């Protein structure tokens, strides 16, 4: 049991032991419930056929929601980022989850990221603008470039979210690369 718990992120041998003893000694009920829900979730949750996010249905609730704007497609790396964007922004379009970034040295290519599916979606005629919300790393930039080329082929406008100074951040402590990006992406007041 201790060994199995260590598959959780941030749980080392010590924490695993603590959790195991807690469940066994004090909260068997909670442990059983966790086990049931875990087993259920692990077998039932899969990827949405349209946007590749995690869902219990064939197509997720966001994709089937008639009030979302199908002309805007936001491309993210992980399902958790959809949640972050939903909570923080007014974005009312649809999403597409890559599940990573193009990284040849890790063997992650277009097929692993579902870029064929995305390409078909961009070619479908519904999408007007694809918004790339991909990490500003070297691999992220390769991924963004790949998608932008595909968007260009289908006559879809491609944009990427701005990169720059975090709110409450101080310029002095910012790394040079971010500062340069922020400077180049300056806006008229």
């Amino acid at each position, binding site marked *: 049991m201790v060994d199995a718990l260590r598959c959780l992120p941030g749980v080392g041998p010590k924490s695993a032991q603590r959790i195991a003893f807690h469940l066994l000694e004090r909260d068997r009920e909670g442990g059983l419930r966790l086990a049931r829900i875990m087993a259920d979730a692990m077998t039932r949750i899969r990827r949405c056929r349209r946007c590749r996010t995690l869902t219990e249905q064939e197509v997720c609730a966001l994709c089937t929601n008639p009030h979302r704007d199908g002309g805007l497609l936001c491309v993210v790396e992980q399902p958790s980022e959809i949640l972050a964007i939903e909570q923080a922004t007014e974005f009312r379009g649809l999403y597409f989850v890559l599940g990573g970034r193009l990284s*040849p*040295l890790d063997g992650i290519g277009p097929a692993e990221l579902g870029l064929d599916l995305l390409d078909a979606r961009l070619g479908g005629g519904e999408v007007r603008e694809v918004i790339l919300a991909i990490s500003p790393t070297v691999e992220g930039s390769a991924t963004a470039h790949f998608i932008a*080329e595909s968007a260009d082929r289908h006559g879809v406008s491609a944009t990427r979210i701005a990169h720059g100074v975090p709110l409450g951040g101080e310029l002095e402590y910012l790394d040079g690369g*971010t500062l340069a990006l922020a400077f180049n992406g300056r806006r008229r007041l």
Partner: protein
Amino acid sequence: MNARGSLFQAFVLHRRDYGNTSLLLEVFAAGRGRFPAIAKGARRARHPTSALLQPFQPLWLDAVGRGEVLTLTRVEAAGPAIGLLGRPLLCGFYLNELLVRLLGRDDPHDPLFAFYHAALTGLAGGDDLESLLRQFEIRLLDELGYALALDVEADCDRPVMPDGVYVLVPGQGMLRAQPDDRAERVSGATLLALAQGDRLAPHQLREARALLRRLLEPHLGGRPLKSRALFRRFAVASAPSPVPGSGSGQGAGASRDSTPLGITNRSLES
């Protein structure tokens, strides 16, 4: 390797997440060669080194440790990141993959480090990517001790003639092509251009690509290079646009069905 060194110049070839907040890096450093290192806590929110510890960013590093994997203690930028985008970026990935696959660990290759830096800068200039890649491949083979004399015939030490036609005989070198040779032929002019580090003419790129591919193959251990496959996808996805480096005048048509990393559409179908 010393337990404690002073700052050295380096590039990150590859990075992956390690634990919850750290990065496991493959570092290529001047005077030290390639070695793995850990950057502790580099993935914490707003940690300034996360932005720096990326491929194609010239760095000053310091590292400690006795084991195989060192721990980075200082990370500083040694200049702005080399801005690679699109095709040049894929070429950069290709160089990194070659280094990760072919360089032994902790084997210093000072000339190669300088050449790598120069090659990246050249890629960022976006100018004749193919010639740059071929030159880098030759320098890499050279540094690894697999060098092959491209400007003399292997069996008689006769210099290669620009108008001659040659074939690569594995384990020996370049020999004058016989009428019944079935191996891919290379013109003497291409060999001389490669040997002298000259810019390759559009019609020479294809020959050079095939030759270097065959030269590298035995050292890659049968596993294909992933960045080649990615480049192939890029080339297919944007088929109408001509290949970089082949755009100038004559011969552009001949190399249109090929990509800088040594893939032709013919090999794609097989």
